[in-house]
């Protein structure tokens, strides 16, 4: 009878439906509670595990909150100078065309200091995956304004809110790279709800599968939160993200490969 079933009966190997991917190392993630980076990491690692390509994958970590991504991912990885990950990935992919190469970058790294490297790697059509986690702020250095910070949004270097007339406009890198002929698949996802996570996972998996086609960059933006930088509780930050980030950074595919 169902009423007599205890947790002990359920928690058995044969009933397992979800567990942490074995491609995480044993190191606890250094991210703040509720930060989307952990989920984004997990989706990348699950993809690599499911595709069985751990021994064929080389990742590039950025500078920023995810600078230590290489400590958490059981993948051969290199840590790039701020913004330069696409340059490293370009060389590695060209020197090992049969390998899977990805970069994992934040918005300060990819959309400010690394704009040139990002745009040119995308425009050359390098056969790499770029995972772009956009939380609209410099998290690691303490919540400064990023190129992606929304108009009016407060940060430690825009304490009265981002004033567009003096501080400029936020940059939609993903729409920008979608314009380039070298990008094959460009999409914007999120990881704040189960549904969003499942879609993001599908997008990341497609991005990695695309590398087999040699058709150019697959670019996956993940709009995420920065509870510490935004100075909010994690759940509240996700709500704020839905209300404020998503209207400016709408989720969904921006460039999809033409049907075969």
């Amino acid at each position, binding site marked *: 009878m169902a009423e007599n079933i205890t947790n002990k009966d359920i928690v058995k190997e044969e009933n397992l439906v979800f567990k942490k991917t074995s491609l995480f190392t044993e190191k606890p993630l250094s991210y703040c509670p509720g930060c989307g980076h952990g989920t984004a990491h997990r989706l990348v690692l699950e993809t690599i595990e499911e595709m069985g390509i751990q021994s064929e994958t080389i990742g590039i970590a950025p500078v920023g909150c995810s600078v230590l991504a290489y400590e958490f991912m059981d993948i051969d*990885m290199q840590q790039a100078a701020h913004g330069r990950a696409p*340059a490293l990935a370009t060389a590695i992919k060209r020197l090992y065309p049969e390998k899977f190469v990805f970069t994992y970058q934040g918005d300060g790294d990819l959309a400010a200091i690394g704009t040139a490297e990002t745009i*040119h790697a995308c425009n050359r059509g390098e056969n790499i995956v770029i995972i772009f986690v956009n939380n609209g702020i410099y998290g690691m250095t303490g919540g400064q304004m990023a190129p992606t910070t929304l108009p009016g949004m407060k940060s430690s270097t825009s304490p009265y809110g981002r004033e567009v007339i003096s501080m400029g406009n936020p940059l939609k890198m993903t729409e920008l790279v979608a314009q380039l002929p070298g990008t094959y698949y460009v999409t914007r996802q999120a990881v704040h709800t189960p549904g969003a996570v499942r879609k993001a996972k599908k997008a990341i998996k497609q991005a990695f599968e695309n590398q087999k086609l040699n058709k150019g960059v697959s670019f996956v933006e993940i709009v995420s939160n920065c509870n510490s930088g935004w100075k909010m509780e994690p759940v509240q930050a996700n709500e704020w993200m839905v209300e404020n980030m998503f209207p400016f950074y709408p989720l969904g595919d921006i460039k999809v490969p033409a049907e075969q």
Partner: protein
Amino acid sequence: MKELRLMKGNEAIAEAAIRAGVDGYFGYPITPQSEVLEYLMAEQPEKRTGMVVLQAESEVAAINMVYGGAGAGKKVMTSSSSPGISLKQEGITYIAGAELPCLIVNVVRGGPGLGTIQPAQSDYFQSVKGGGHGDYRLIVLAPASVQEMYDFVGLAFELAFKYRNPALILSDGAIGQMMEKVEISDQIPRWTNEEIKKMSPWATTGKTPDRPHNIITSLDLDPHKQEDFNHKLQAKYREIEKNEVRFEEIQTEDAEYLFVAYGTSSRICQKSIQMARAKGIKVGLLRPITLFPFPSARLLELSKQVKGILTVEMSAGQMIEDVKLAVRCSIPVEHYGRMGGIIPSPAEVLTALEQNFL
């Protein structure tokens, strides 16, 4: 018999790279070294050896491509000239901090700033003292001929891989642009991926079950580990100083005075020696071939023999500081140099010797 070719110094670098089995060259045009990239693009080495050649969007991107390729165990290089080398310093310090082998070629032009496109030797400090932030050194080779431009490519990679350290060929616009006869070496095959895994087990070639994941980084937030790492780097540099000093001496056996000069300046000094000796002035030349490690020990020995040293550099006097340190200020050390892209004449150098010491 070996194949002989008449080549520009820059072309010699490019051909030597192909022949040395280099896997990747990542460049960006800048005068007076653009022939390196031009030659490689024309030569299509991907057809000869499978070597990758890419024109990057900037010097910054080019050196970071080198960083990526080097971290993956490949034989990779870049070349540029002074303003471009300044841009590369970010990548170079990361490469040094991650202990990766690679080759950087600087075909020096006059500075500061955009300066001039004419040859100079004013990047000496930048080359031998590190160049970017942090305590690190490059292995620095200074060719004085087109043949040495060619030969030092292979040597630089040999040393770079031996010590897991970036190597720099410090040339200048004169040697880059001049044409001389070059003896071409046989083609060395590129390493296979299997050979790379064996030779460079630290490289990011993809994590296999037989080893932990490989990480290429220069970051360690633990100050004690970071200090330990710095001690390890310093120990490596002392080892390089012990083993790898290279220099050439010309007519030092009976010398009463000594020129110390490298690269283009050393060629000028050879003529000055002839002119001086015709006048009965016994002068010789010590030409450092490695600028780091610097031939300090030999200079100290020579300081017991000669009455004075004149360093000749196409700069305001940079190497002179290392010469003074080497001889421990036991004898007078003076400098003669031209700047702004001007190469000193042998007569000027002789006059400087006479004015300083006679």
